[in-house]
């Protein structure tokens, strides 16, 4: 990709992309809530809601009805809103962004959000948990696309400040890319864990749990390295330094939420009773704490994906290519790995 440093004429694609990403995140949160509260089949038909057009379903019934109906129908409404916002973004890109690939990306985003909606619908129509799992994997992917469009339309993408070639630039670029892939892989494994069929063998679940823990360690290691390299060598290149700090913070939060998820779902592991009392209160199923810690863990995964993707994209754009920037530190590290 050849850098093009001509700033676009209109700020609206960027502003709308931000709005879209900001609308998508709550959609993901509520989507996570649908799974956590097992609300997926609270509305048995699709695309209608109990026979009503999605937008014409009586709002009083929605707001005052059962909790799972509120969550599921709310998820559908939010999804529809995000879909419409994607159409608007595509129109803005078509009219206000000269980059052809960017228009195609807008089109791809629209196709993805439609695909995601249909997946969700089919999950309901067929009451199929495997489709729910795919739906749970595609959601973060769409969120990542919206964040990518925020990046591509941002001021930082267009106006690169001139700076010296930072050491380890190539390594940072590759590390950011690998981190992003690992995070998405982790999201997929998380979706498998959440949608495991009731008739699955215990061994399959154990494998998924171990893989999830292994990937958690891998992601943590990669983020730590990435943050260290960025803050050591490319802190001054906006917005890499800020993104690296946010990414490291998110990983810390996500690890805490992961541990919390285990505790509110399966109680404190028995081996912990060596050090602390296992408490006088049993795990509360469906309680506020359980519901929101688990859902926050799911949503934070998407946030981690978005941040790592933004860092990877900005890294590709703003850091010189590897051949010019590889230094002794980078080579040593790569040799060690």
């Amino acid at each position: 990709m050849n850098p093009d440093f001509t700033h676009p004429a209109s700020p609206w694609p960027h502003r709308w992309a931000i709005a879209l990403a900001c609308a998508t995140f709550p959609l993901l949160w509520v989507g996570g809530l649908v799974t956590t509260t097992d609300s997926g089949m609270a509305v048995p038909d699709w695309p209608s809601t109990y026979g009503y057009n999605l937008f014409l379903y009586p709002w009083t019934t929605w707001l005052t009805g059962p909790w799972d109906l509120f969550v599921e129908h709310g998820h559908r409404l939010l999804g529809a809103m995000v879909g419409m916002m994607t159409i608007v973004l595509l129109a803005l890109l078509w009219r206000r962004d000269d980059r052809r690939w960017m228009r195609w990306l807008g089109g791809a985003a629209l196709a993805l959000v439609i695909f995601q909606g249909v997946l969700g619908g089919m999950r309901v129509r067929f009451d199929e948990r495997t489709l729910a799992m795919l739906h749970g994997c595609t959601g973060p992917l769409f969120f990542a696309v919206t964040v990518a469009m925020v990046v591509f339309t941002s001021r930082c993408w267009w106006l690169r400040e001139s700076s010296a070639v930072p050491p380890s630039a190539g390594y940072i670029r590759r590390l950011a890319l690998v981190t992003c892939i690992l995070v998405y892989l982790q999201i997929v494994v998380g979706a498998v864990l959440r949608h495991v069929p009731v008739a699955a063998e215990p061994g399959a679940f154990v494998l998924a749990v171990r893989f999830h823990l292994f990937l958690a360690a891998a992601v943590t290691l990669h983020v730590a390295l990435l943050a260290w390299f960025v803050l050591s060598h490319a802190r001054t290149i906006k917005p890499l330094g800020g993104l690296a700090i946010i990414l490291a913070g998110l990983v810390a939060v996500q690890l805490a939420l992961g541990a919390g998820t285990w505790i509110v779902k399966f109680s404190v592991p028995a081996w912990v009773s060596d050090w602390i009392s296992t408490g006088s209160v049993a795990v509360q199923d469906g309680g506020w704490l359980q519901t929101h810690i688990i859902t926050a863990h799911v949503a934070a995964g998407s946030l981690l994906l978005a941040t790592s993707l933004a860092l990877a994209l900005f890294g590709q754009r703003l850091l010189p290519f590897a051949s010019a920037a590889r230094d002794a530190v980078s080579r040593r590290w790569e040799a060690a790995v």
Partner: protein
Amino acid sequence: MPYRTLAKFVGIFAIVALTGCGQTEPPAFRLDMVKVTENEISPKHQQAIADILGAMFGTPDAPFAMPETGLDERKLKMAAGPVWSNEAGDKHGLYRRHCAHCHGISGDGQGPTAAILNPYPRDYRRGLFKFKGTFTAAQPTDEDLRRIILNGVLATAMPAFALLPPDEVDALVEYVKYLSMRGQMETALENYVFDEGLEPDAPLDPATDAELKDIIVNDLLAGVMEGWNTVVEQVVVPTEEGIPPTDRSAEEITASVNAGRELFFGAKANCVKCHGPTGLGDGQQDNYDDWSAVTVKFEDDTRALADEIKGLKQDLKKKTGDERAAAEKELKTKVAQLAVRNELIAHMLTPRRAIPRNLRDGTYRGGRRDIDLFWRVFAGIPGMGMPATGPSAPGGQGTLTEQEMWQIVDYIQSLPFEPISEPQVRRVNVRTVN
């Protein structure tokens, strides 16, 4: 390169995930293959048993309750089947929504999450329940099951479902009993086939065999139901005068605690044997719980079979003619049996020893009320090796008097506050055994 290892891991995981998640068939009840293998039940009889159970109890999506079971079919239908709810908020598929991921579709305690949990989820099929207010050999009452569902089991993955409406809890209680009865009936049928020594191809169809139908309904099912139907008579109710008053003086409590300590360490109650001199649960550590003991026995038998096969192979070299042909046939049969057993072992939960409770933790899984602890002392904990000190049935004679049991309860409740002169640091309740 770690990335290559990662790529391999991803590949293996993807295959397992895709095959594991490709299931679209409605989940079905599974037979207890350990029992089936141990009893050497032929495939034909396995299918016959599954058919009989299907006729008596239906399927996970469409449960059926014979009148003899006394189960409420409306509640069963509410608990069974896939998860969904209607516009009014009536929930269905409650068992799959709340329970099946740990306890399994068949109630065998082998749901997908089972292997990561300690203790393992309860296997309902034996009709054996740990925390209840009935005599040691008796089934739990509905109230016992309801209490566990509502309060959960402390320090385990069994959550408290206190937020569920009463009708949903009632439906789950009914479904747990249903799975338990179904499991007990399965065992009764498997034992019947074994005890009768039926030939592998012998018919086993109550639809065409009136005598068999009579045996199944009036003998086997009646045997299963006897325990459930008489449970009301088996409730342990402590005598009013024996219950310690709530307004006891400090001296009276201290005297009771001291008496409880004497009993704890004495030969009569001998709690120290398992719970240890410090009460940390550091007494004997070698026993398995009843569920793991089945696995251990199966593994031991499988090892013995493997040794027998080695011996047969050695002997085979010395044999010729018809004798060799017969030995080869026997060897082939045994090798096939070994393969089946090894396949089963690969999918079984690793056996765990029954580690006695750390009484200084103050965490009582079966409940922390005085009456909960009294029931534990009175009736023990079935399946865990914790013996009853009360009579095994109404009207019987126990090891301890009720007064002595209450004294032990007092001592147990004092333990978390009693200093240990030489605290022992050890892992509590986590040891798994290869």
